[in-house]
């Protein structure tokens, strides 16, 4: 045991040495402007989230909290709450109840600090024909009537399905995205190189790229954040739904914002490992299906018909 820690220590040391050399080299090519502080370099050389020691993590979080608090003129916290033992999150969505009001879409944007301009939505609600059933090729993405639901239609919100076998994490060339023990697929925004291979791999359109600088109004910024979730993102990285990791991992936990806002109770959330949970009851007693089941991604997002 002590051997491995020693090895790791040596590895880290040599890595640091290399990075120092690299810093000198890169510095020559791209000198940051005069206003650039030491934090630019700290950010540049920041290690992968899962490789940070406790002390290093503290420094990183301190730097981020300082940076965000200054930028958004309020006390911003960046949590790193780990998964809870014995918890595997699952989501249920009742297609017979959903009315397509898109309140979930906007509650999500607000909670998770998505860019308003350019607009990023982690949830996409599809309007489908009752006659055709769940047939995506006839889905209407930009329906905009006075009132929903419209006659002859039903609605299907799609967001990250938190796959048990996520194709997106498999393809990432730098392991910037991975599945946590509680089943949530997360992204380290400080490690993502922005190649967008994960977006090509995702069968659900659940991954979104910051094509431009995120436009997040200071007044609307939610200051309660998680490192792997809703903290402000830089441009040029991929982001996605995390089942509101900043809420659901707390003890006592809170429901995801989309679940909380739903006016018709179409959204259900819970622990798949708890035999008494509502989500387990639904899976066992209702007609359930998973989107694109044939791709064997094994989503933990279950569509069902309660009535």
């Amino acid at each position: 045991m002590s051997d491995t820690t020693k090895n790791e220590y040596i590895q880290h040391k040599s890595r640091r040495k290399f990075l120092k050399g690299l810093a000198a080299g890169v510095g020559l090519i791209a000198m940051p402007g005069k206003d650039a502080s030491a934090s630019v370099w700290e950010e540049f050389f920041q290690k992968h989230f899962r490789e940070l020691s406790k002390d290093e993590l503290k420094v990183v979080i301190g730097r981020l909290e300082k940076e965000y608090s200054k930028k958004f003129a309020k006390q911003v916290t960046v949590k790193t709450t780990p998964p809870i033992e014995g918890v595997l999150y699952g989501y249920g969505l009742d297609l017979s109840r959903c009315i397509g009001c898109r309140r979930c879409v906007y509650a999500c944007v607000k909670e998770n600090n998505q860019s308003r301009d350019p607009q990023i939505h982690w949830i996409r609600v599809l309007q489908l024909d009752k006659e055709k059933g769940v047939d995506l090729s006839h889905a209407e993405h930009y329906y905009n009537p006075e009132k929903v639901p419209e006659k002859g239609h039903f609605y299907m919100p799609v967001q990250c399905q938190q796959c048990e076998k996520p194709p997106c994490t498999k393809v990432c060339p730098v392991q910037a995205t991975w599945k946590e023990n509680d089943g949530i697929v997360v992204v380290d925004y400080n490690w993502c190189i922005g190649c967008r291979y994960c977006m090509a791999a995702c069968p659900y359109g659940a991954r979104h790229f910051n094509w431009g600088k995120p436009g997040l109004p200071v007044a609307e910024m939610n200051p309660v954040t998680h490192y792997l979730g809703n903290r402000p993102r830089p441009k040029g990285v991929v982001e996605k739904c995390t089942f509101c990791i900043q809420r659901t991992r707390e003890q006592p936990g809170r429901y995801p914002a989309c679940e909380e806002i739903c006016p018709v109770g179409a959204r259900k959330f819970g622990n798949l490992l708890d035999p008494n949970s509502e989500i387990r009851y639904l899976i066992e007693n209702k007609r359930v299906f998973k989107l694109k089941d044939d791709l064997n991604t094994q989503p933990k997002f279950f569509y069902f018909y309660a009535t």
Partner: protein
Amino acid sequence: MKNIWNFFAGTLVLISKGSKAYYCWVLFLLVLMAIGASAYVHQLNEGLIVTAMRDQVSWGFYISNFTFMVGVAAAAVLLVIPAYVYGWGPIKEFAVLGELLAVSAIVMCLLFVTVDIGHPERFWHLIPKIGLLNFPQSLLAWDVVVLNTYLVLNLTISIYILYNLYYKREPNHHFYTPLVLLSIPSAISIHTVTAFLYNGLGARPFWNSSILVPRFLASAFCSGPAFMLLIFLLVRKYTKFKIKDEAIQKVAEIMAYAMFINLLLLGAELFKEYYTDTIHLASVQYLFQGLHGHSALVPYIWTAMIFNVTAFFLFLIPATRRNNITLVIGCILVFVGVYIEKGMGLVIPGFIPDTLHEIYEYSPSGTELLLAMGIWATGLFVYTMLLRVAIPILNRDFHVADDGVGSYIGDQMFLIQQKPEEEPESVETH
């Protein structure tokens, strides 16, 4: 060490010398490169929002060009195999030019990938041990490995041979032959891995077809040689380098076979899609017919089809293959045809319709076009510089001087219209 420095210093002197045409050409490329660089600065400042890519179509013109250039790079083996495996003289004389083309093409590939990513400064995340390369899980990680291996192999082989010729030594074939042999599977691997990169995605039925790798290889063995032949014809015309007709004929013949296989595989793909007529037909329909009134790629793909079929016949029929004019036309047709088919024609329909069946029509923005132009200019610039050194060395016009330190430069002009016997204007120069 001293020798290496002298060689390097000599090449620097050499590339600064040349005819007016050479200077104009290099200046022209430098201007295009500067335009491309300024487009890149603009993109770095604003983000990739200055491209036409969006979440629905998350890869576009850059990755299309990247994919095509991988094919051009891989095609160098078409010279390497006859030259080194079969020891066929006429091609062996200039196989090193093919290797240098591979080097230039890989440089372009790496540039196209670099400009496509959101955080290029985080490139070090890809370096094993220092960063966290997701090898062997991610095929992009594989691509990083094989592309760089191929680049290093070709650089090593060509520089080793040229360096020895410069010092009037026979290159040691015990050293370079194993490397050359290794470069053959390596060339196949860059194309296979790039195809797998698309192929392995269940989310994209348009790419998720097991025929994709052979299609990639077949089209690479058309477009790469087409590009090479065009360059060799120019080299033959404007430099002192001689390339035998039979060598060019041989490459053209290989292209005819490759194009046949390419068209056959495409036909097989189209049959399967149209006959089974499942929901996965949508992307093919978008490409060839248009889908729900969206048909941006339709004129392009049909142009490509016509070009490819025409070129196939031009290379198949010995008379048109041997005629320099129809040969050039054929090469241009193949080059353009495969550029469309294996570039935008392969990448974009993978995203249209997107995974939730939304149709977002993509066509490259001005920034994307300018930047891509800059990268093409960079590739040509690199190749021009490499040829500026390699051709005089192969012609024995550039070698170490008798004092063993300085260089002898016999070819001061480099780019200059040669005097072909059959052309009438050769009379004036006498």
